[in-house]
């Protein structure tokens, strides 16, 4: 079944959307869906009040949100299967703790996209703000699987405490991507504002653009060409193309195993 929700008008107070997962609405009638209450600030609003609701046949469980804005928060939280397509922007916490399935945001995403993600795919066609693929605030056990792709730019501290999985940013990042990273791979095609991999322990970060203000606590390991990134001995590895300065770190930690690859071409002043 495919559920199509079209936002009727702009809203001021954000609404939490985590009750509307494709997998959860499969067996519901249109009327039942319309009567679902969603938290809005200190009160609630029904799906019917907020959206025009349309239901279609579909092989896979699908949810399409049209006219979406950054006021719609927690889209796809904890989803395990199916597909969500967001036409417009997604609010904070899109794809939080998702375990499976696929979310595509055809717009921008607010902060905390894919926080503590465990599996599945989150694709953001526009920009995303801070803490993409990070841990919950305060926690030291972050993203543990899945893939996040952002085609635009992102904010600060993405992949914070990341343990596993892949984050691919096609644009630029703010400061400290991969802070406290303890596994997984972050690939950044654009530039990094500063301090990639601060306090990282394990995992890998690839910077294809310019890394401004690299950290002094990383150790230069040499120049590598078309390297294969291996996080464990058994790992088949992920090949990347190009010439890179390879660093290990962050040596503020004891015996760190973090790998940092920085494009030679785009960082002529490095070393």
């Amino acid at each position, binding site marked *: 079944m495919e559920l199509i929700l079209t936002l009727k008008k702009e809203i001021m107070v954000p609404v939490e959307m985590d009750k509307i997962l494709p997998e959860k609405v499969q067996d519901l009638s249109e009327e039942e869906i319309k009567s679902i209450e969603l938290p809005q600030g200190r009160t609630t609003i029904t799906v019917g009040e907020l959206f025009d609701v349309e239901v279609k046949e579909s092989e896979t469980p699908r949810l399409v949100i049209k006219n979406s804005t950054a006021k719609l928060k927690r889209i796809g939280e904890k989803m395990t299967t199916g597909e969500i397509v967001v036409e417009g922007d997604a609010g904070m916490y899109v794809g939080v703790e998702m375990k499976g399935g696929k979310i595509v945001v055809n717009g921008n995403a607010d902060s905390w996209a894919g926080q503590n993600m465990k599996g599945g795919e989150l694709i953001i066609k526009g920009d995303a703000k801070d803490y993409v693929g990070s*841990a*919950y*605030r*305060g*926690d*030291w056990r972050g993203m543990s699987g899945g893939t996040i792709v952002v085609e635009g730019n992102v904010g600060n501290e993405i992949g914070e405490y990341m343990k596993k999985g892949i984050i691919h940013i096609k644009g630029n990042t703010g400061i400290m991507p991969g802070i406290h990273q303890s596994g997984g791979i972050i690939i950044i095609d654009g530039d990094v504002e500063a301090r990639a991999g601060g306090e990282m322990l394990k995992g890998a970060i690839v910077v294809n653009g310019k890394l401004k203000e690299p950290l002094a606590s990383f150790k230069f390991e040499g120049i590598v060409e078309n390297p294969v990134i291996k996080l464990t001995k058994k790992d088949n590895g992920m090949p990347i193309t190009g010439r890179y300065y390879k660093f290990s770190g962050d040596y503020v930690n004891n015996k760190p195993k973090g790998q940092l690859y920085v494009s030679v071409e785009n960082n002529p002043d490095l070393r």
Partner: protein
Amino acid sequence: MEYIIKNGIVYDPLNGVDGEKMDICVKDGKIVESVSSDVLEIDANNCVVMPGGMDSHTHVAGPKVNVGRTLRPEDSKKDIFNKKGLRSGSGFSVPSTFKTGYEYSEMGYTFVNEAAMPPLLARHTHEEFIDTPQLDKAAMPLFGNNWMVLEYLKEGDFKMCAAYVAWLLRATRGYAIKIVNPGGTEAWGWGKNVHGVDDPVPYFDITGREILEGLAKVNEMLGLPHSIHVHPNDLGHPGNWETTLASMDCVKDIEAKPKYGERTTTYYNTHLQFHSYGGTSWKDFVSKGIETAEYVNKHDHVMVDVGQVTLDETTTMTADGPMEYDLHMTNGLKWANCDVELETGSGVVPFIYSPKGPVYSVQWGIGLDIFLNINTDKVILSTDHPNAGPFTRYPRVIAWLMSKQYRDDWLNNKVHAWAKQKSFVADNDREYSIYDIAKVTRANQAKVLGLSKEKGHLGVGADADIAIYEIDPEEKDGKVIEKAFRYAKYVLKGGELVVKAGNVVKEVYGNTIYINAKVDEALEEELMKDLRTKFKKYYSVNIDNYPVSDHYANSWKAINIDATDIK
């Protein structure tokens, strides 16, 4: 309001009532002989009736607890309390204030004693008490690393030390003398720790032994209801059991002279589990729980609580600053550290006691070794909330004690094999009776705190703090026991029905109990001269702004102690 609790099976150790079917009458907040005919009846058929639970050692309010809350948003997220008509709250190991009050109440508890109040920051503790419903409260200010105490004791001036203790209890509205790692937290201010009872504190040149002896002496000079309440040196270090016994031993010749209550002991060792470690490192770490329990059995001056590890993810918090630093270096998790001017310090670190962890499993076994080998008149059930586990796990601890079968289920299926190899739990068949449970969860607390006239029993004249649990006294199914004690069928607090079927149905606000001890006026004057100089020279606050003022409680209950014989 009058109530009669009918047909319950009553367990009231302080009055020697061991499972008798009897009715309990309640009027105007007290237990009475009889009630009129216009009375609300509570049917306690097939239920166990006990005095309200009392917690003599828990960390539920104040700056260090709140640092725990702020340090750990991820702990808040784990457990949300949201029930209609009640204040919402959050936090699994460090719950917010209202949630704390409600959850203690759901378990049938009616009194808590906050175990570590930094004197300078006493207001914070009392502010949180105001927002902690359902319970009477008390808090113990920290004395074991306080500059004034260290100096008076070094000079051997017990009178001035007694006058200072009396003044500080009044100024902070505190209840008893708490000592944490005597000398060690002050040493931490110098980047050090002390090891054992005979290692002198930097600059002050006084030892843990001298601090313990001195404050125990002062405690009995004043005649305080509770004894000194001690977290001894070397907490959590393999081989520390010898320090523990040496600490207990050094006050054994001091006589208990409470001017209020019926206490007979002079030394309260909190979280004995953390102090009963053998071996020299974590590799040859073994239980000395039987040894420490046997010492307690043989010595009349000691009372202990256990600090049972519950094998949960929790938050450690203590005034033992150097210990928290060690913990942070061991587990690598985040750490908060605080220094409180002339008085104390503290640290906070999250901790995951995984059942699969060899060391944690032995810690679990050590707590049980103590419980299963000790005289139940001398032991108190605690988890040193939240250090060894949250207070909401007390029912699980009760289940481990009452059911060998349940304990063995954990031993064989959940915890690491080290628990069998390095502790003696596997060999022990002892099971606590409900009567034993009533002792270790209420009666013993009341007696050692000096509150057994009004609390911890169901005799005529006692506060009508009553817990009613739906459980067969012979129950052996661990899960059933756990559920029965987690959610009481009924709870009365101060004569009002506050919990029904495990849900808080009425919000009430208890008293904050503190000690108002008076010493001789001339002595007090001499003390104030000294204190004014000290405050001017060293404190960041003026002495006149230091005492906690009257509006810092829903209602105060002062226990007046006349110590004017100290001149």
